[in-house]
């Protein structure tokens, strides 16, 4: 049995639903999510958006912390390179998370659980698609146990 399967059975019975945290920058992705709403594009209700001014504000430590506390997936999303409201924040995001993503994968976290996307304020269909796909991927993987601090 895989690390995740060990304690899964119980949760599956209790109608487990993936819980995905989305860090979205105010200017692009958050606005893109707003547009998704305005356009009434439907996607699974499994994400919770946490608004940050810029994807450059997202500390990789937040991601580990979120997994520790019990989310099943984390998406960090911001403006496309070149579109950053603050000129360069997303270039730093890119560097940091290129490393972080590899590191997480390296210690055994499934890559689907931690994703990064550029989603502009105009890309409502992309937002819809990314969320839908990610939710499904994580549903397939099941509840996350890795890094989770559940001994309390």
């Amino acid at each position, binding site marked *: 049995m895989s690390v995740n399967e060990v304690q899964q059975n119980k949760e599956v019975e209790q109608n487990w639903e993936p819980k995905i945290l989305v860090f979205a920058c105010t200017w692009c992705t958050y606005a893109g999510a707003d547009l998704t709403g305005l356009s009434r594009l439907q996607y699974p209700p499994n994400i919770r958006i946490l608004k940050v001014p810029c994807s450059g504000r997202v500390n*990789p*430590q937040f991601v580990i*912390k979120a997994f520790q506390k019990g989310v099943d997936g984390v998406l960090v999303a911001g403006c496309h390179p070149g579109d950053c409201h603050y000129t360069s924040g997303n270039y730093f995001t890119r560097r940091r998370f*290129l*490393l972080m993503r590899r590191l997480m*994968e390296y*210690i*055994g976290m499934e890559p689907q659980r931690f994703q990064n996307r550029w989603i502009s304020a105009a890309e409502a269909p992309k937002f819809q698609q990314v969320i839908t796909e990610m939710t499904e991927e994580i549903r397939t993987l099941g509840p996350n146990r890795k*890094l989770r*601090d559940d001994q309390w």
Partner: protein
Amino acid sequence: MVDLTLEIRKTAKELLEKGEAKVVLGWEKGNFPYSTTPVFIDKPEDTERLIWDEYCINNLALYMLDYKHLDGKVGIFVKGCDSRGINRLVQDKQLDREKVILIGLSCPGMKDEKKAKELGPNADIPMAQKCQDCRYPDPVVYDVFLGEKQNKKVPEKIDTSDVEEMETKSPDEKYRFFTTNYEKCLRCYACRNVCPACNCKECIFDQTATGWLAKANNVSNNMFFALTRAMHVGGRCIECGECERVCSVNIPIMLLNKKIIKDINFLFGDYDAGLETEERLPLGGYDYTDPEEFM
């Protein structure tokens, strides 16, 4: 090495006698044939305590943090790894290069103290892991150089075969490997405290009120510690291997650090930290042409 020991003593003595340095950092013999311990000499007559042998493994660079506010200069003996540690501190603005006198020594590779303890000092003691991986046995910066440089042919790139091997494993295998190792972690913070790149005034792991890391020892918190520290020294790790050497429960810490070094080399171009002090750190900058994986 005996000759060099004499030269080391002479050099230290001169620095102290002439008043060029207020204190000289080196190594002295420990209680066992296979142990040495850092020593801080401030009197010319004490320079006899200094030695240079195949167990002078400690990276002395980080001690410079204790002398930040000393009026006067510090003399310090540096091997390759120590010198990169010095550069680390200079680049991090924790050390004024003018305030140290670096006495360079070419390192033949130090022996593994832990193995010596197990095998006994008379056995054939292998070279310490950190020295086997070393690519800069000669100091990269110094003011005085003692002995002869080896100009040893070293591999151009860091050996990451162990990292690559780990990468091939399945997610669950990898996770099990790291968690069984970090389950042992005592969080004694020896790895952090010995690291020249860990030179913060107050480490976030000590700031209990902020909620980053609870004191409770469990594998989840320990992994948070491990991953966060790896990210914090990412692009700054000078590969001295001290963290792994000092781990009281033998966690292969360099497997994380080397992973990040490998990725930085691959993603952002080859970079060896601690070779010079002016260049932008890999995580202190960016390039428009960085690989695009975010889609």
